[in-house]
């Protein structure tokens, strides 16, 4: 299996973890070719994740914007409310086949943590989740949710107490108990084989879109748009279209308070090549290679790196990446709510915003597919606060 995408990717981890990565790579190579594994996975996609997810024609939005037709890939209607479940199902099934008895993972706001805890509960596998101290405080409800599902949540107060530190701590924990523990990475990041593996478990999104759009429109979309944190929902919807050069692939990254401030997470726009969290890719870092604190109101995009395959697609010009600010994302959040009656995850709202502008510039015979990677219930509180609305539940 190729460990790199061009110059990006690789396995930059402590020696203690290398054999575990090799073991996972071998198991993945074996099972991804195994018809029984694939049958089971398909069943889990259908029965547990609620796949296939709908491809929804956003008629009101399309009408209102007056340009290209907009379709939304409804990953928000998956069990647990986002695309994260696809990857969790794949890796959890793999971990089970490998005979692992324990799962560890990192989580930012808690989406990946909740998805992992959910499937660990179903699979009766012990689950230990690392979450930055800041995030634990901001997302106390998700902590309770994970605990309710039977997981143990450890608050990480090193570094900035956010997602990257949760990853650090999960790696540390993994080195302690690497022999019987599986690290279930939440995005297309980290050392090989994670970026390949997570992409393989997420590419179902794009495969479904192809079938659905051909059925609905008889042709491929002109552009596919997705938000990019680590990049799993984006690669998931892009992958099947990479070979179709006419389909524009557009990733949207979090510009937070703006690219001209220190408060953003726009890795491609403002980052540079580096090596971190086991991979060579693009990172936000200072001149000496220190990883920078990042910011986005969207916890799922609040990460200083990006998956190596995206760095590669960007380097060869196959995909483009654009920044969208907090404020713009909130505009889109409100717009989609009022226009289609769909409250998007604030992550996904970044992609929606870009698509709103793109649609206006394109003719009516063009088609844009946006990955609605998750639902926004989790973000309503934060948006209310941002808008200055007092919420005091009792």
């Amino acid at each position, binding site marked *: 299996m190729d460990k790199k995408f061009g110059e990006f990717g690789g*396995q930059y981890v402590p020696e203690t973890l290398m054999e575990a990565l090799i073991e996972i790579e071998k198991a993945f190579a074996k099972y991804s070719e195994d018809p029984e594994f694939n049958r089971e996975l398909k069943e889990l996609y259908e029965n547990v994740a609620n796949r296939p997810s709908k491809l929804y024609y956003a008629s009101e939005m399309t009408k209102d914007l007056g340009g290209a037709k907009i379709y939304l890939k409804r990953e928000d209607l998956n069990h647990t409310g986002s695309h994260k479940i696809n990857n969790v199902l794949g890796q959890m099934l793999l971990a089970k086949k490998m005979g692992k008895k324990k799962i560890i993972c990192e989580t930012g706001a808690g989406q990946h943590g909740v998805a992992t805890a959910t499937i660990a509960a179903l699979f009766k596998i012990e689950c230990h989740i690392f979450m930055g101290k800041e995030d634990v405080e901001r997302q106390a409800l998700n902590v309770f949710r994970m605990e309710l599902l039977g997981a143990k949540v450890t608050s990480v107060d090193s570094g900035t107490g956010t997602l990257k530190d949760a990853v650090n701590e999960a*790696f*540390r924990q993994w080195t302690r108990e690497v022999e019987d523990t599986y690290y279930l990475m939440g995005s297309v990041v980290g050392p090989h084989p994670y970026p390949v593996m997570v992409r393989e478990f997420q590419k179902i999104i794009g495969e479904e879109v192809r079938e659905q759009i051909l059925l609905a429109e008889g042709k491929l979309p002109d552009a596919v748009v997705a938000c990019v944190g680590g990049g799993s929902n984006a690669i998931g919807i892009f992958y099947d279209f990479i070979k179709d050069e006419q389909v524009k692939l557009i990733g949207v990254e979090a510009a937070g308070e703006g690219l001209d401030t220190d408060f953003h997470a726009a890795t491609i726009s403002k980052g540079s090549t*580096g090596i971190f*969290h086991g991979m060579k890719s693009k990172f936000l870092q200072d*001149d000496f290679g220190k990883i920078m604190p990042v910011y986005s109101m969207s916890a799922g995009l609040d990460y200083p790196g990006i998956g190596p395959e995206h760095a590669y697609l960007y380097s060869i010009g196959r995909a483009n990446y654009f920044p969208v600010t907090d404020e713009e994302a909130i505009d889109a959040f409100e717009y989609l709510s009022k226009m289609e009656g769909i409250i998007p995850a604030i992550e996904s709202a970044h992609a929606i915003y870009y698509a709103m502008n793109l649609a206006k510039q394109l003719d009516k015979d063009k088609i844009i597919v946006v990955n609605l990677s998750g639902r926004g219930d989790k973000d309503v509180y934060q948006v209310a606060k941002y808008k200055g609305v007092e919420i005091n539940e009792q």
Partner: protein
Amino acid sequence: MNNRIDLKFKELKESNKKALITFVTAGDPDIETSYKVIREMIAEGIDILEIGIPFSDPLAEGPTIEKASYRALASNTTTDDVFNLVKKLRVDYNIPIILMLYVNLIYKYGKDKFMGKCTEAGIDGLIIPDLPIEEVSELKSYASAKEIYIINLVAPTTKSDRLLKTVKESEGFIYCVSSLGVTGERKKITTDLSDFYNRLRSITNLPLALGFGLSNKKQIDGLKGGWDGFIIGSAIVNIIAQYGIDSPEYVGSFIKSLKN
């Protein structure tokens, strides 16, 4: 065979001694204290010096060294400051000096430029905890060109084929990780160390230095296997955490206790 590391191990072997390798994070709590701590350690007779460059995300470290990294960053210690520190040490000392740092610090600095600075400062080797043998080629040619050693690590989990590959590629000595987990003191080391040692010794003649979790003379004396050296990190960093700018003398006494 001009690298100070090789010379040191040759010298120690001839006098049937084991190497005492000690670690300190540069800039913890400030670069001046690091300088003084190192002078004390050398005065007390350490054999090899390992200097850590602070990093924002030291993911192979336990809390002790991790926090030292944050303290050093808080005092604004940069890679260039560490080069200057080594240069200053080289005025007085010829001890082998190894930098411990994360790969991104080298990559971002510029691989070639970094190795040049190492030579200029008088650095003998690099320990890069997130650069396994599979990725060593990233830096190898740059380091070799400047005669800087990259010290490879092996862990109890490392299997035979990779062990073989690692020792083949190694130079200077092999950093043998005593047990699973990150750096930091351990109450007990449960790895079967004599087996670990024998597996290594059967395939290489390179010096084998044991690290991770070692903290006092009694513990070290009790360890199984014919190790050629021991690396002490967190135990020293803990003293610095406790005494701050007053730590040089305490570190000195600690080193003395190890030597007796």
